[in-house]
C-alpha cells in the first residue's frame, strides 16, 4: 500500500502456491482496479471501481482498517449522520449501519450491518453482516482483522471470517433410516487390515464425500482465513503501480 501524490494505491500479489499455480496480482487506486499476471504483467481485467455502499459512508472509505483509525472522527461523523453509534463493554465502539446504505446484491436482503472498533487500540475489531436470501436462508458473516504489532503500531496481516448459513427449511423426502454422523469420531473405526480384507471380498466401498450432520439441513458454517505476508506501507517502489500510473 502506498500513497503517491495524495492518491492511495493498493497492490495484492496472490501466492501461486495457494492459488492453483496462478501468478496473479491486483493493483487499485480510488477509481480503478487492474488484475494482471504478476510475471508477464499482461492485463487480465480492468474495471472502474463502483461503490456498493452509499456515498455517505465515504468517511469510512478513507479509513482502510489497515492500521490505527481515527475513531474520534468516525464517532463525530456518524453522529452527524444520525447513525447508531455507541460504546459497549470491553472498550468496544459499535456502529450500526442502516441497510438502506448498502446496495443489495441480487437475491438477498441486508438485515443488519454492525462494525465494531477496539477503542483501546483504535483499530477495527469486527464486522458482522446478516443477509436474508430469497429462499429464507439467513447468512451471518463475521470478519475480524488480524493485527500484528510492528514497533508499537498494529498492522493488519490478514482477516478471519466465519460464515454461518442457516437454511430456513429442511429438505423433504428422506426416509427415516438415514444414519446421521455429527463428526468423524462418531463413525466406527476399522483397521487397514480389515479394510483390505473387506475390499478383497468386494463388500466395502469408498465414500468420496462424507456428509456430517443432518443431510436434510443445508445449513453450514465456514471459516475463511486470509493471510497477508510481506505487508509494506509506503515502503514499496512506485513502479509496482505502473499499470495504473503509467510509465516503466
Amino acid at each position, binding site marked *: 500500500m502506498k500513497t503517491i501524490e495524495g492518491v492511495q494505491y493498493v497492490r495484492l500479489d496472490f501466492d501461486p502456491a495457494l492459488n492453483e499455480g496462478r501468478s496473479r496480482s*491486483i493493483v487499485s487506486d480510488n477509481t480503478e482496479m487492474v488484475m494482471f499476471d504478476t510475471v508477464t504483467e499482461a492485463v487480465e481485467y480492468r474495471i472502474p471501481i463502483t461503490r456498493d455502499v452509499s456515498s455517505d459512508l465515504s468517511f469510512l472509505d478513507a479509513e482502510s482498517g489497515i492500521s490505527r483509525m481515527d475513531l474520534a472522527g468516525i464517532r463525530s461523523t456518524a453522529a452527524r449522520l444520525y447513525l447508531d453509534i455507541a460504546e459497549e463493554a470491553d472498550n468496544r465502539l459499535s456502529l450500526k449501519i442502516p441497510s438502506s446504505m448498502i446496495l443489495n446484491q441480487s437475491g438477498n436482503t441486508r438485515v443488519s450491518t454492525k462494525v465494531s472498533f477496539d477503542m483501546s487500540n483504535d483499530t477495527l475489531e469486527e*464486522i458482522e453482516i446478516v443477509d436474508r436470501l430469497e429462499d429464507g436462508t439467513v447468512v451471518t458473516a463475521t470478519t475480524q482483522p488480524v493485527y500484528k504489532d510492528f514497533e508499537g503500531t498494529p498492522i493488519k496481516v490478514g482477516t478471519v471470517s466465519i460464515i454461518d448459513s442457516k437454511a430456513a427449511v429442511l429438505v423433504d423426502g428422506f426416509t427415516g433410516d438415514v444414519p446421521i454422523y455429527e463428526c468423524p469420531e462418531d463413525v466406527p473405526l476399522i483397521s487397514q487390515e480389515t479394510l483390505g480384507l473387506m475390499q478383497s471380498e*468386494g463388500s466395502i466401498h469408498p465414500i468420496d464425500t462424507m456428509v456430517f450432520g443432518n443431510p436434510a439441513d443445508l445449513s453450514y458454517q465456514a471459516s475463511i482465513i486470509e493471510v497477508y505476508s510481506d505487508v509494506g506501507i509506503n515502503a514499496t517502489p512506485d513502479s509496482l503501480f505502473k499499470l495504473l500510473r503509467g510509465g516503466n
Partner: protein
Amino acid sequence: MAGFKQKISFVLLGVVISISSGTTAESDLTAKVSKLEPEGYRTFSGFNFEEYTPSTNGLKKRVEAEVAYVISQDSTEGTKYAGTYSIVGHSQGGLRVLAYANQLKNKSAVEYNRLDGIITVSGIDRGLLALDGGFGTLKARFNTDTNIIWRGFRAGVGVFDIGSTGILSGAPRQIGDVSLLLSNFLPGEFRAYVKHALSDASEDSLAEIRDMMPGSTFIKENVANNKEFTYRVITGTASGWRLVQISTIFGKAWVPVYLTWNTYAYYSAYMDVPVFSNDIPVGYIVGLNNNTLSIMDPAAENDIRKKVSDMKDAFAKIQDIHFWKCVGIIGMFSGSAQYGYDAGQAKKWMANFDGELNELKGSGENDGLVAKESQYYPKKFTDPNTGEKLDVHTNVLGKTSEGYVGFPYNHRQIWEEAADVESKYKEMVIEARTARVRK
C-alpha cells in the same frame, strides 16, 4: 392394506386390464423382454426415466407380469419351449431378473427348475444408490450444488462484467433455480432421472422408482435384505491453518494457527442376505466408465467441459477481486468476505466437476449413472467387529475372485455397443447350465 386395495381394483377392472394403468400392457412386455435367443437366454431391458408416466404400479406387478409372459410364450403354439434358459437384465432389468427368480420359485417348482441362471449387466441390483435414503438424498445434493453455483454467480454481480464476457451469461436469477445445473451440465439420461426426484411427487406415485431405492420393500421381499454400515480408516496426518481463539495485546481474537491432525477415509459396507438362493448361479457384469458425459456425443461433452473450464476461471477472478476488496473496510461490510467464499466454492465445484457428478450418483465408482456397489452382490461379508466370515451368495458366474466382471463402458455403451460384453454374458449362459444346482 394398500396392497389389498390394489388387488381388489385389479379384480374388479379385470375386463379392461389391457388399458388400465394397474397392469403391464403386452406391448410393454414385448418391448422389455426379448424372445428366447438361440443360445438359450432372454434379455430384460431397463427403465426409461424420460418416458416414465407416474404410476402407483410398482415393480412387483411388472415382474409378476414378466414371469407370466415368459411362461405363456413357452406354452404357446409357435413359440413353445420346454428347455432351460437364462435371463439377462440391463439396468433396472438387472433388478427385475433377480426378482424374477424369486417369483418363479414361489410360483412353480417345475418352471423354476427350467431357469439356468441370472446375469445382470450394469444392473441396479442393490437399488439405485443415488436414491439411498429416498428422493431427499438426491434433492439435498442437487440443491446444495445449485446453491453453490447460484451463490458464485451472485458474487460476480457488480464485480465482474457478466454481460460482455458471456462466460457467466445465463446466470440463474433465483436461488434454487435448478434449471442451470440441469440444462447446462448434465446429459439427458441423467437429467431424466434427477427430474423425478426433484418433482415433489410422493414416492408412492412414482412406484417403479420407489422400488428402485436401496432397501425398498420390493428389494427386501424379492431380491435381498441388507444392512449398511459406515466406517472410517486412518489414512495419515495433515497439516494446515486452523482457527484458535487467543488473547493478544489488541484483545481476544481468532487467529490462524498451523496444526497437524489425523485424516480419515470413509467407507460404506453392506451385509446382504439375498432372497435368491445359492442353487441359482448369478453373473454380474459391471460398468466402470464413470464419465457421465461420455453418454453424450463427444462434441456435446467438449462443449460442457469448455463451459466448466471457463466458469472455473471466471469464479477464480471473482474470488480474487473480493479478496482485494477485503483489504479495505468498505469491502468487508459490503459482503466481500462472504462473496469471496461463495466464488471460491463455485470455482472448486467447477474444478471438481466429475467428482461433483459422482457425488450425485452416490459413488466415485460407477458406470456414468449407476454406482458400482449397486451393480453386484459380493460373495462374502466379513463382520469387522467379530471377524466372522459370512457367505452371501457364492454361486457366482464369471470365474473372477471379485465376484463380478468389470468392463470399461458407461451405462449405455455396455448394453448397446459392447460386443465383448455380449460375448461374456453368452459365456455365462453356458457356464450357468453346469453351475445350476437342481434338487
